[in-house]
C-alpha cells in the first residue's frame, strides 16, 4: 500500500507556500560554510610547460609564498611528475594545496611520448577516487582528494602561434582536466604583438577542437566579470618574487635597464586577472567541474570498459550488484582455466626434462663402459709387456749367471792345467 501512496503523491504538482514568519532555514548556507571551513579545502594544480618557463615562480607569486623547489635540468630522459602538497592558511580558512610539476617537459628531442606521463597521472588520481568510491567501507569525507582541478598550460612567448607540442598535449588533456592556457614570460611581447598572438592562439585552439575551461556565466553574481575575463584568454602573465621600489611603494616587479615591469599592474600584464579568476572567484567552480564533468566521464568510460552497463539488452535496468556478480564468476572461471593450463605446461616441462636427463644418464653410462673397456685393454697390454720384459730379464739373468759360472770355472781349469 505504501508504494501506491508514494506514486499518487509524486504525480501531484509541487506547491509553493508562503511563510507566516521567520523560520530560520536561511541559515543553511552559513551552516554549510562553517562546516566546510572546519573541514578545510583541498585544491590541486597541475602546471605543464617547458623547463625554465616560469612555473615555479608563478606559483610563488600567486600564493605569495616561497614553495621550496630546485631548478630542473634540461637533460631528463622523459617527463616525470612531481607532486608536492602544502598546507596554507588565510584568516581561518585552511587550504591543502597540491602543486604538480612536469619536470623535463619539452626538453627531449623526440617529444611524441611527452604527454603520456601527464595523462597517466591524471587517470591514476581518478582511479584512486573511483576505487575509494567503490569500496564497501568508505571514508570519503577524510579521503585526500588528489584529482587535478586545474591545469595551467604555459605557452612560450614566441609571438607567432602555439607550438606543435602544445597542440598535441592540450588535445590529449582537454577531456580529462580543466585547462587554462597562459602566456608565460609575457614581458617579452609588446602590446600589439600580444593582441595578435592571443587571437592566433584562440583561433588555433578552436579550429583544432581543444576545449579549454570557460569561466561560468550562469551565476548572475559573477556573470559579468567572468564573461569579460573569457575574452582575455589566454592570460599573459609575468611572475616575480623580488620587490622593487616604485615611487614610494615596494611592489613585486622585474627591474630592467629600460623600465620596471610590475606584476600587479593591470596594464603591464594579466597576472591580477589570473589570480582573480583562479583563486578569488572560481576556485569552487573548478572543483565542481572536475568532479561533475571530468571525473564522471572517466568513471563512465572505466565502468563500461569493465562491462557494466546501465541497461541490459532487454532494456531492463541492471543493478550494479548483479553485473558485478556475473563479472566475478566469469573472472574466477578464467582464473581457473589459466591455472589448469599452467599446471599442464608445468607437467609437460617436467616430463621433458626428465626424459632429457635419462638420456644424458644413459650416454654417460655408455661412455663410462667404453672407458672402462679401454682401460682394461690397456692394462692387459701393459701386463703382457711386463711379462715379456720379465721373461727377458730372467733369461738375461740366467745367461749372466751361466756366463759368470763359466768364467769362474775357466780360471780353475787353467790352474788345474798349470799344476799338471
Amino acid at each position, binding site marked *: 500500500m505504501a508504494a501506491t501512496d508514494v506514486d499518487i503523491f509524486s504525480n501531484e504538482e509541487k506547491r509553493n507556500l508562503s511563510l507566516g514568519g521567520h523560520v530560520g532555514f536561511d541559515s543553511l548556507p552559513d551552516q554549510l560554510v562553517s562546516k566546510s571551513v572546519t573541514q578545510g579545502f583541498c585544491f590541486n594544480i597541475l602546471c605543464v610547460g617547458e623547463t625554465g618557463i616560469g612555473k615555479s615562480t608563478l606559483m610563488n607569486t600567486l600564493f605569495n609564498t616561497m614553495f621550496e623547489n630546485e631548478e630542473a*635540468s*634540461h637533460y631528463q630522459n622523459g617527463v616525470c611528475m612531481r607532486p608536492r602538497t602544502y598546507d596554507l592558511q588565510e584568516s581561518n580558512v585552511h587550504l591543502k594545496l597540491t602543486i604538480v610539476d612536469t619536470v623535463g617537459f619539452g626538453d627531449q628531442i623526440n617529444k611524441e611520448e611527452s604527454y603520456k606521463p601527464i595523462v597517466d597521472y591524471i587517470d591514476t588520481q581518478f582511479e584512486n577516487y573511483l576505487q575509494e568510491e567503490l569500496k564497501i567501507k568508505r571514508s570519503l569525507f577524510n579521503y585526500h582528494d588528489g584529482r587535478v582541478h586545474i591545469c595551467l598550460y604555459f605557452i612560450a*612567448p614566441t609571438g607567432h602561434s602555439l607550438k606543435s*607540442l602544445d597542440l*598535441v598535449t592540450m588535445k590529449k588533456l582537454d577531456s580529462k582536466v580543466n585547462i587554462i592556457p597562459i602566456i608565460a614570460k609575457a614581458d617579452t611581447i609588446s602590446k600589439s604583438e600580444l593582441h595578435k598572438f592571443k587571437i592566433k592562439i584562440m583561433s*588555433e585552439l578552436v579550429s583544432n577542437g581543444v576545449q579549454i575551461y570557460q569561466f561560468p556565466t550562469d551565476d548572475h553574481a559573477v556573470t559579468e566579470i567572468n564573461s569579460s575575463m573569457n575574452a582575455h584568454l589566454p592570460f599573459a602573465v609575468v611572475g616575480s618574487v623580488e620587490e622593487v621600489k616604485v615611487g614610494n611603494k615596494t611592489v613585486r616587479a622585474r627591474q*630592467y635597464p*629600460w623600465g620596471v615591469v610590475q606584476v600587479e599592474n593591470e596594464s*603591464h600584464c594579466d597576472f591580477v586577472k589570473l589570480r582573480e579568476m583562479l583563486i578569488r572567484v572560481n576556485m569552487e567552480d573548478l572543483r565542481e567541474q572536475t568532479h561533475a564533468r571530468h571525473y564522471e566521464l572517466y568513471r563512465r568510460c572505466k565502468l563500461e570498459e569493465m562491462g557494466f552497463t546501465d541497461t541490459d539488452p532487454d532494456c531492463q535496468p541492471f543493478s550494479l550488484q548483479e553485473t558485478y556478480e556475473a563479472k566475478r564468476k566469469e573472472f574466477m572461471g578464467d582464473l581457473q582455466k589459466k591455472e589448469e593450463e599452467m599446471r599442464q605446461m608445468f607437467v609437460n616441462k617436467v616430463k621433458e626434462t626428465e626424459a632429457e636427463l635419462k638420456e644424458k644418464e644413459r650416454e654417460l653410462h655408455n661412455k663410462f663402459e667404453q672407458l672402462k673397456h679401454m682401460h682394461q685393454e690397456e692394462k692387459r697390454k701393459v701386463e703382457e709387456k711386463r711379462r715379456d720384459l720379465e721373461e727377458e730379464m730372467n733369461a738375461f739373468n740366467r745367461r749372466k749367471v751361466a756366463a759368470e759360472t763359466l768364467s769362474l770355472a775357466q780360471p780353475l781349469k787353467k790352474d788345474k792345467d798349470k799344476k799338471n
Partner: protein
Amino acid sequence: MTTNIRYKSRIPIKSDETPEEKQYVGFATLPNQVHRKSVKKGFDFTLMVAGESGMGKSTLVNSLFLTDLYKDRKLLNAEERINQTVEIIKHTVDIEEKGVKLKLTIVDTPGFGDAVNNNECWKPITDYIDQQFEQYFRDESGLNRKNIQDNRVHCCLYFIPPFGHGLRPVDVEFMKALHEKVNVVPLIAKADCLTPNEIKKLKDRVREEIERFGIKVYQFPECDSDEDEEFKQLDKELKECCPLAVIGSNTVVEARGQRVRGRLYPWGIVEVFLSVCVCVSVENQSHCDFVKLRNMLIRSHMHDLKDVTCDVHYENYRAQCIQDMTSKLTQDNRMESPIPILPLSTPDVETDRLIKMKDEEVNCYVIMGNITYTG
C-alpha cells in the same frame, strides 16, 4: 673603427727628389692597391640563421642589415608543424655602402625544432653545407675556374631560447653536428625577457655547458701585439660577452626625442642600438649586445669568418673527401672527377680481415689440439 683608418696611403713621389728620398721603393702602397681592387670586385657573404621558430631570427636579420628581407612570409599553424621537416630557403640581396658592394645571402632554416619528433632535424642543414662544399670542390678542381661562385656558408648564427636554464639537448646536438663544418656563433635570443643579472647567469651557464660538451664555437682571433689599444679593448670585451644576448626590432619608435629602432612596452622602450643607457638607476649598461654583434659580424670580423671557413672548414672537408675517394676506388662511379687517381697507400681492408679470420681459426685448432692431447 673602420678599415680606412688602418691603412694610410702614401702618394708615390716624383723622380726629381733628393737622393735620400730616392731610397723609397714604394711597395707601401700595396694595401691601397688591394683596397682598390677589392672594392672593384665586390664582396660576398653567406650567413645562416638557425633556431626554433619564434626566436626572432627574421627580425634580427632585418635589424642587422636595416632592410626588410621577409616580406610576404607565410608562417605555419601549430597543427601543420607537428610533422614538419626542415627546409632551406635562401634570400640574396645586393647592398652597397660608400662604393663597396656586398652580395649578401641569408640561408634560412624554417621548421628546425618545430616538429614533435625532432630526431636528426639538423640533417638537412648539414647536408646543405656539405653540398656547398662539394660544389666548390668540384668548381675548384675544374678546368675553367674564372667565375667560381662561392656559396659556402661563412657563418651560422644559432639562436638559443632565453626561457630555459641553459642549453637544451636539441641545442647541444645541433651545435655538435655543425661545429666542424661552419663557424657557429651562439646567440641568446629575445634578451628583453631577462634582467641584467639573469643574462649574466645564463651566459655563464651556456659558456660552461659549451665547454662541458666540447662544442667548438667560433673563436675570435687573438690580437697582434701591435694593434692599437682601442681594438684590443674591444676584442677583450667581445670575448667576455660571448654568447651575445640580442634583441631585434622591425619597428621604429620615438625615444628621447629621436626616432630609434626599438620595442615599445608599457613600462619602457628597449632600444636596439643603444650602447650607453641614460637611465637614472642603471648607468653605462647597454640594453643588449646587438651593437656588438653587428660590429663583430660586419665591421670587424666578416673577413675573418670567411677566412676560417676557407682555411679550416673547407680544407677539412676537402681532405676528408679525397681520403674517402681513394679508399673507395672501385665502388665509386658517381664522381667523375678529373683529379688523377692516387695509388693506394692504405692496405686493403678486405685482405686484412681475411688474414685476421684465418689467424683466429688457426688459433682455435691449436687450442683444441691442446685439449685433446692432454685429455
